[in-house]
């Protein structure tokens, strides 16, 4: 674990040095990410001029949902997205994965943390502001137990998002071009922005089990704002553990099919 944090620190330090050299790229990159959040929030404001609730959620509850989801995905994209993305698009095809296989460190983790994009974190204060703004306007206090449960599920949500991302990039061991598959986690963020209650039952079940994205966005906020039901907490912990295990086994299985392109 100590080794993991030391490598992460070195990679982040290098990322800062690299990104500071190309300031225009940093600004446009960060603006790109920010625009997505601004558009989502603008859409929410537009929607709520036409109604006072969607799926039983008022505007502030939905803003909490979006900002919480955005905080998770922004941390993810600054830390793990680029590395896993390059793995799918480039590393297996060109044999660059050899570099990670030969290091005395878990290659799956090494690949994931290899390309941090620190400038994405610039957007975090914006989402935190929206989150706090919405909490302040809720008009009710949140019990400490809800807050504690929220943080627990928030961590699970981050890990689950990582596991899902891994599952979508691992087919790169077999598939040459998997751009759309890799972008699943990005594109599904569009679904995660809204309360699960707006979707039909079949879709909600599908997106809670087979592709459990509601455990990433909806359930943590549900326990924060409403009753922190034990079954939600147990379910989220179990499904996170299960998907992390699946991702790990899938990676190991894929690795057996890896034939170095450079050897």
């Amino acid at each position, binding site marked *: 674990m100590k080794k993991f944090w030391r490598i992460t620190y070195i990679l982040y330090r290098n990322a800062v040095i690299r990104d500071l050299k190309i300031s225009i790229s940093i600004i446009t990159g960060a603006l790109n990410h920010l625009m997505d959040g601004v*558009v989502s929030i*603008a859409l929410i404001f*537009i*929607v709520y001029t*036409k109604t006072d609730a969607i799926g039983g959620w008022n505007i502030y509850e939905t803003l909490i949902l979006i900002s919480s989801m955005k905080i998770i995905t922004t941390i993810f994209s600054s830390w793990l997205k680029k590395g896993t993305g390059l793995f799918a698009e480039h590393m297996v095809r060109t044999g660059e994965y050899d570099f990670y296989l030969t290091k005395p460190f878990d290659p799956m983790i090494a690949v994931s943390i290899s390309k941090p994009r620190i400038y994405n974190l610039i957007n975090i204060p914006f989402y935190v502001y929206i989150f706090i703004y919405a909490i302040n306007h809720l008009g009710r206090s949140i019990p400490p137990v809800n807050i504690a449960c929220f943080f627990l599920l928030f961590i699970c949500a981050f890990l689950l998002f990582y596991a899902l991302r891994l599952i979508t990039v691992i087919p790169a061991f077999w598939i*040459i071009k*998997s751009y759309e598959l890799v972008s699943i986690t990005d594109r*599904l963020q569009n679904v995660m922005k809204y309360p699960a209650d707006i979707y039909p039952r079949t879709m909600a079940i599908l997106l809670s089990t087979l592709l459990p994205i509601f455990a990433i966005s909806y359930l943590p906020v549900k326990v924060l704002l409403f009753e922190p039901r034990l079954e939600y907490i147990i379910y989220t912990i179990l499904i996170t553990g299960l998907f992390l295990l699946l991702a790990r086994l899938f990676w190991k299985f894929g690795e057996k099919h890896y034939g170095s392109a450079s050897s």
Partner: protein
Amino acid sequence: MLKTNWAYSANYFFSQILDLIFFLTFFFLWKGVYGNSNELIISGYTLTGLITYYFATEFIFRFDVIGAIYLNWDIWDGTLTNWLIKPLRITLLCIIDPIVEKTMSVILALPGFIASYFIARNYIDLPSLPNFGLFIITLLLSFLLNILFNLTFHALCFKHGDQDNNIELINYISWFLAGGFFPLSFVPGVLGQILQILPFKYLMFFPANVFLGKYDPREIILGWIGMLIWILIFYFIFKRVYREGLKHYTGVGR
């Protein structure tokens, strides 16, 4: 291109599924909004009208030129030199290339598009044949406008270096201002009025409303004239930026 997509069938399959999910998200979101609202018509749209709007925009999105214009990369990595030594009009080639590429991608997107229709068919009003003809003409003009708008930013690469991030950002903003995420008439007040003046509405909002049959022939012709004016404006801007930029171009090593 057809062969390329078929070779990467898993990628193609997932792209269809993801496009379908994108449409369904808006479908269920607005179904929820209308279900909860006392009004049957919101900002001039019934639920059926609005879902049809999203159905039309899903089709128009297939003509998104991001990733179909390569001028920025060609300038940045020097590939442009290969084109410059050939007896071709590069500016014309830049316009024809995305037209060919997007025609194929629209054909390939048809299965996903048909699936969207069948899922939401009770909420989609297909246009009459003459109206569909008007929509196609509007769509082609909008496509041409979008190509020229994007090419202008690609040509900035000559003087200002790689524009990849800027192009992505500008496209995101332009789709938002074009009504790609909701009809522009939903935007209240002065901001809504400003959006109606800007050329972005011709990329999405105007063609989608032609599909819906919301305009009379006079309004459509006025819209087409507006589009043609903007096409000419962006054509001349692009030509100017390209010509000026080319003076700064050096293709070392090619």
